[in-house]
């Protein structure tokens, strides 16, 4: 699904060069649930930004879903982000003056779907995260856990093949964090590849493979991968609000 070879990313200012990633290579297969851990400044978010085509790398190669993405135009990369990738952020990144429904609608708008198709997809995504009854609420009217569930619905609604989650439970209490991880596991169980950055070893232990980043280099902690959660034919079902 995702294959990076010798990727390097350097941040430059006038006087300083920071090597955020060096000779970084990683292969993530379809249906895997990979956690990425590491101390602050180790390059976790940089890796996620490169994986999500939100930033450009300086060296190496990157194939996403079999496609070399290093020379794509902005338009092509935007299309891939829209159709193949779903993002979940630590700070939820909901648009504050759009209600739940309209927040989830954002990626579908850029896909150019008709209103009926969008409504159907949004209703389904909100059903999965258990927020059907909150579709008219503004983000500020929801709890942190509910906001993250909206963000998950937004990531899910376009049926992406890859979910990139950047510390999705970082702003939540422990109970809520587990609830969110349950939801992400459920998504992974339907075949969606998940790459999750986390600081929490307990959450990382629930993933099928753990990656450790240190000074921009990767250490694969799991030589013996557990069986992925994904089983063909499994569906997400819906939750109660």
């Amino acid at each position, binding site marked *: 699904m995702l294959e990076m070879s010798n990727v390097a990313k350097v941040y430059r200012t006038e006087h300083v060069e920071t090597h955020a990633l060096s000779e970084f290579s990683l292969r993530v297969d379809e249906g895997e649930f990979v956690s990425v851990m590491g101390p602050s400044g180790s390059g976790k*978010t940089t890796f996620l*930004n490169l994986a*999500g085509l*939100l*930033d450009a790398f300086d060296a190496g190669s990157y194939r996403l879903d079999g496609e070399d993405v290093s020379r794509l135009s*902005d*338009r092509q990369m*935007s*299309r891939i*982000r*829209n*159709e193949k990738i779903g*993002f979940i*952020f*630590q*700070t939820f*990144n909901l*648009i504050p*003056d*759009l209600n739940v429904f309209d927040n989830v609608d*954002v*990626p579908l*708008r*850029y*896909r*150019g779907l008709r209103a009926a198709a969008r409504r159907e997809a949004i209703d389904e995504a909100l059903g999965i995260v258990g927020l059907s009854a909150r579709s008219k609420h503004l983000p500020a009217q929801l709890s942190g856990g509910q906001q993250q569930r909206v963000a998950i619905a*937004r990531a899910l609604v*376009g049926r992406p093949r890859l979910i990139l989650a*950047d510390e999705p439970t970082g702003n939540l209490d422990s109970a809520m964090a587990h609830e969110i991880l349950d939801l992400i596991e459920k998504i992974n169980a339907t075949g969606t590849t998940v790459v999750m950055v986390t600081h929490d070893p307990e959450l990382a232990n629930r993933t099928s493979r753990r990656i450790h980043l240190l000074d921009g280099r990767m250490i694969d902690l799991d030589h013996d991968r557990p069986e992925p959660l994904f089983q063909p034919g499994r569906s997400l079902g819906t939750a109660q609000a």
Partner: protein
Amino acid sequence: MLDYQLGLSWRSLKRNPVLSLLSIGGIGLGIAVSMIFVTAYYYLAGDPIPQKSDRLFLVQLDAWDPARPWDSDRPGEPPDQLTYMDAMALMKSDVPTYKTAMHKADLTVHPARQDLKPFRQLTRLCFADFFPMFDVPFRYGAGWSREADLGPEAVVVLAAETNQRLFGGEDSVGRSVRIEDRDFRVVGVLDAWRPLPKFYDTTNGPFDPAEGMFLPFHFGRVFEMYTAGNTSSWGSYDGGYAALLQSEAIWLQFWVQLDDDRQRESFEAWIAGYAAEQAKLGRFARPQNNKVRDVMTWLRVAEVAPEEARALMIIALLFLLVCSVNLIGILLGKFLARAPEIGVRRALGASRRQVFAQHLVECAVIGLCGAGLGLVLTPLGLALVDRLFDEQFDFRLDPILFGVALALALVSAFVAGVYPAWRVCRTQPALYLKTQ
């Protein structure tokens, strides 16, 4: 997608009402100020008869004093009016589609209604061709026939205002009006008609309204009526009206309609022949200098549009530019404050082009709102300008000016919005996703 972008723009305007009002108010004010002066210039320098201004020609002949030119500042310029002898000679040419000599006169009208006192009315004495040649609009009836010119028949065409005054605006065709010492039959009543500038007689007030009555040209001779406009002469015409008709005094305007180049060339040859013939008879002592000029050429030569109007229009457009530049700052601040949201949208699949378009649509919405405000303020400003000039112009926004206002507003908003929109669409999404 456009409906979505319009919705986002509207939401953005509501989100920052003060900034939105500043943006719209700035553009609206700029539009109002610029449109006031664009409108003034449009009327003063515009084409008063665009549908056929290239087919209507003022005829000039140089029968002026052999010792000195008509205009010492522009020695190559022939007089702008004709003598009676020349005008009547040109009326014999059958080359033009339409032709008319004419002048204005000040006649006394004696209303039949007892409650109305006799009044003086500026009147145009012209030939039947005047009406079809200048596309004069009629509310009732029509102009008189060419046969009526010959008599002349006692017929009159009333302007709408005169018909209102005499007959309360009713269809007065067939009714009688006493003018000077005889009764005239109304054959037509004009609809509202005010060519601006009054191109057919720029010598006698290019911004005056059209006359209130129109009579067959030869009634000037019947009444021995001198022109109410300018008369210039390099010789004497003592001896009354008959002497005036035989003199070198110029006091008549002469217009023709020539529908194509061949007809024009043919007419130019005709008047060249006439001028040569007159020269043989001892007139036209100056080098032959005949001019056949279309409406817009003539208005330029006659310098009808005041230079001040043009200068004021340029200053007003510069004011709009300043408003637009001011808007750049407002929009830049507003758009860049939205960078985190744009980061999210980019992550969710919005391309740079879509982000750019979204912000330009917002600029268009601001421009349209500004145009709306400007179009409300412009008539107020025009009314004020009109009052300053004793209401002699009656400036109004017509569909063309309405379109100009809309285009100016959109262009101003786009000019102001392009850079901020470009800046925000270059936003690196990764910079903001972690820091929202």
